[in-house]
């Protein structure tokens, strides 16, 4: 386990001995750069085009979410979590609500759990779609971006009809869901279930067997399962490296134990495997949604939760499988209405740490591909 070297830090001062004594180049990629998905700054040390080392400079989007949490009540903080991983806001909300519910020893009613699962899985698809579009664009394929955004629209429409917001949904409340499903919710979801599989085929048609796509992604940014675990990398990246681990299966939450789905894994841990894993995950999410929407029970959607949430003194760690990996909330309560400390364990932040391991010795173009394949959202990295 310990043979992975910690990401060594970039020594910018002393020039490394390079090929033919030519100079190495220090390239500042970002914070304003089309391929860094926001305001990530990667300092690259290059020999020609070869990457000798990287250093990530983050924090440009730091908003002090954890500090804000200490100054808001439990309920008031709920919308803030949507602003971290803003492309998967529903997952963030689910994680937070469940963590607080655990602290309160409350269980959300079954119908609420079904709604939660449907929306979360829809959100997982939306997040993967956004990842696919931007990742393909980074590698130079323009068209998938527009296809994925076209189809993501259908999911956002369902969110909008359900809770009025498209991106930062604030869909769930502590103890369940605030809103009952709107009339036609099930029909919309079923329509989407029929609508979407051909669209995945369409994306795959453009990319999966595309020669250039294969060359650009196979054997690029390889990371072994062992390295993944050592570096704390989770989510599709970990699964693509052959570790069959998904919190939905390993430590099921929110009714996931009742659904039948598979965890896709890759073998090589390269960018192509990560691509395939996410593509299959989208299909598996559809399976979960199908089971959920067909089995959705009647009943209340809100558990009995006091108006003013005052959890007993104690601390809790709860994590869920967000589209990007393990999203954990560590909440310390001092018995008051405000959390004493909320720690968010952001998957993007930890996954980004693997960038250096993955791109050393590769080319500049691969850095872009690997940033894309790690599927980071800077809002979550910087919080």
């Amino acid at each position, binding site marked *: 386990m310990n043979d992975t070297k910690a990401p060594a830090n970039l020594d910018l001062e002393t020039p490394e001995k390079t090929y033919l004594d030519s100079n190495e180049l*220090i390239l500042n990629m970002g914070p304003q750069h089309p391929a860094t998905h926001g305001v990530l700054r990667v300092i690259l040390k290059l020999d020609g085009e070869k990457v000798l080392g990287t250093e990530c400079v983050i924090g440009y989007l730091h908003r002090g979410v954890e500090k804000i949490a200490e100054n808001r009540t439990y309920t008031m903080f709920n919308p803030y979590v949507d602003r971290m991983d803003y492309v998967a806001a529903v997952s963030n909300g689910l994680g937070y609500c469940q963590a607080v519910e655990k602290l309160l020893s409350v269980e959300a009613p079954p119908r609420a759990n079904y709604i939660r699962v449907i929306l979360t899985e829809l959100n997982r698809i939306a997040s993967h779609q956004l990842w696919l579009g931007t990742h393909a664009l*980074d590698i130079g*394929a323009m068209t998938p971006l527009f296809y994925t955004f076209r189809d993501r629209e259908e999911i956002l429409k369902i969110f909008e009809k359900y809770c009025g917001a498209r991106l930062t949904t604030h869909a769930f409340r502590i103890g369940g869901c605030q809103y009952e499903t709107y009339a036609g919710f099930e029909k919309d979801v079923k329509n989407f279930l029929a609508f979407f599989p051909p669209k995945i085929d369409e994306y795959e048609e453009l990319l999966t067997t595309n020669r250039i796509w294969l060359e650009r992604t196979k054997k690029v940014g390889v990371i072994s399962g062992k390295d993944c675990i050592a570096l704390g990398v989770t989510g599709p990246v970990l699964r693509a490296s052959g570790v069959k681990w998904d919190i939905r299966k390993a430590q099921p939450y929110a009714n996931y134990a009742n659904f039948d789905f598979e965890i896709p894994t890759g073998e090589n841990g390269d960018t192509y495997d990560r691509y395939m894993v996410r593509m299959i995950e989208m299909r598996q999410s559809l399976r979960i949604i199908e089971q959920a929407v067909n089995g959705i029970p009647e009943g209340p959607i809100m558990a009995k939760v006091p108006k003013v949430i005052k959890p007993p003194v104690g601390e809790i760690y709860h994590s869920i499988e967000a589209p990007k990996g393990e999203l954990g909330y560590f909440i310390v309560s001092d018995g008051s209405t405000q959390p004493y400390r909320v720690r968010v364990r952001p998957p993007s932040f930890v996954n980004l740490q693997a960038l250096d391991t993955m791109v050393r010795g590769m*080319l500049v*173009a691969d850095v872009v591909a690997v940033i894309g394949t790690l599927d980071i959202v800077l809002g979550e990295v910087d919080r």
Partner: protein
Amino acid sequence: MSALTSYLGSTAGAPGTAGFAVLGWAVTPGEANNQLWALIYVLIIFAGVSVAVIAMNWIERKALAHFQVRLGPMRVGPHGLLQPIADAVKLLIKEDIIPAEADKFVFWIAPVIGLLAAFTVYTVVPFGPSQAVSDMNIGILFMLGVSSLGVLGIVMAGWASNSHYPLIGALRSSAQMVSYEVAMGLAVISAILMTSLNTDGTGYLSMIEIVQEQQRQGVWFIFKFFPLGLIAFVIFAVAMVAETNRAPFDLPEAESELTAGFHTEYSGLRWSLFMLAEYAAMIAVSSIAVTLWLGGWLRPFPNWLIGPVWPHEPVWDFIFALFPGLTFLGLGAIAVRGTVRMPKHPYFRIQTIGLGAFAAVLAGIGVLLLGIAIGANASGNANWLRASEGLSNVYWFVLKVAIFMYLYIWYRATWPRYRFDQLMKVGWKVLLPISLGVLIVTAMVGVIVS
């Protein structure tokens, strides 16, 4: 330039009388040593290429948009027809920024060199047997040589910007162009070799002679020694995309890696010069491909419809002469359809009128061309017939080039970008051996056949 090129004029053609029939001129102005007409041709071609670039700009944006389930420019003019003009005006009046640390002189001259190289090649592009500025006896060499100078502009721009992204873009560009030129040159040589496979064994480097040789041999070189010609053509078609830095070989300006590559630091007019040069170069290399493999100005089915040699078959001549006019009428019809389908709202009145006028202009051109074709056929006047033939020569040439332009857009919509080492691998390990093999096999087949 024309003075120089006139020295290079090939066959000692008798200087034709300066007639009105520009397109029906018997020889190129260069051959005729007629400086005035050469100048006029240069101006016509310059204007034509510039208009083509502007049109290409609009078409690319529209076509790409429709590939990607969106509409593209819709606001400036009906269906965004005036968008390129608006863009041009914007670029022209933008502030001219030269980075403080840049090398001023090189920064200034780089886009000029790129543009110069891209436009100079048009002196030998044969739009017809006499529709070229000049016919050099080393025409194809001249084209390859001058278009290979375009990379200097890119390299100089990248270096002069004194910034990292442009520098990497320039490095990529120089390596890419040099490697693909080799495969490209070998593919060209195999086509030139085909020109010599005639009875007297003389080959040609002259652009016009290459096309005329295809006419004499009665086959476009893409179909000659099938599939040898086709393979050479495909190699050229791949290499030419790489030469012009277009997707999927657009590494020197890969926006997701190098922001904008070699022209990251350029803006306004200078940037538009690069843009102009890129599109002009695209058209130029496409016309090389058309000339070498697709029979240049020759209309389709030259041998099927009229026999292997080129006697004038009046009926087919006439039918094919109608194509240019019909095409413009068709474009006009599309514009009319757009006009009819415009929203009926006062807000759209000006746009509707504009699109209608555009349709009218297209239809007018179509009617004029049809008129020339029909009139020439009816009257039998030699000058008119020559003019009509000249028009259809230009038409077929432009049509074939336009197909390549569409392919460029298609590539861009479909493919991801190659990585630098993969690009080199494709150039040196795939294209180069294949093109060498094709050259050798072509030579052997040629010897066996003759």
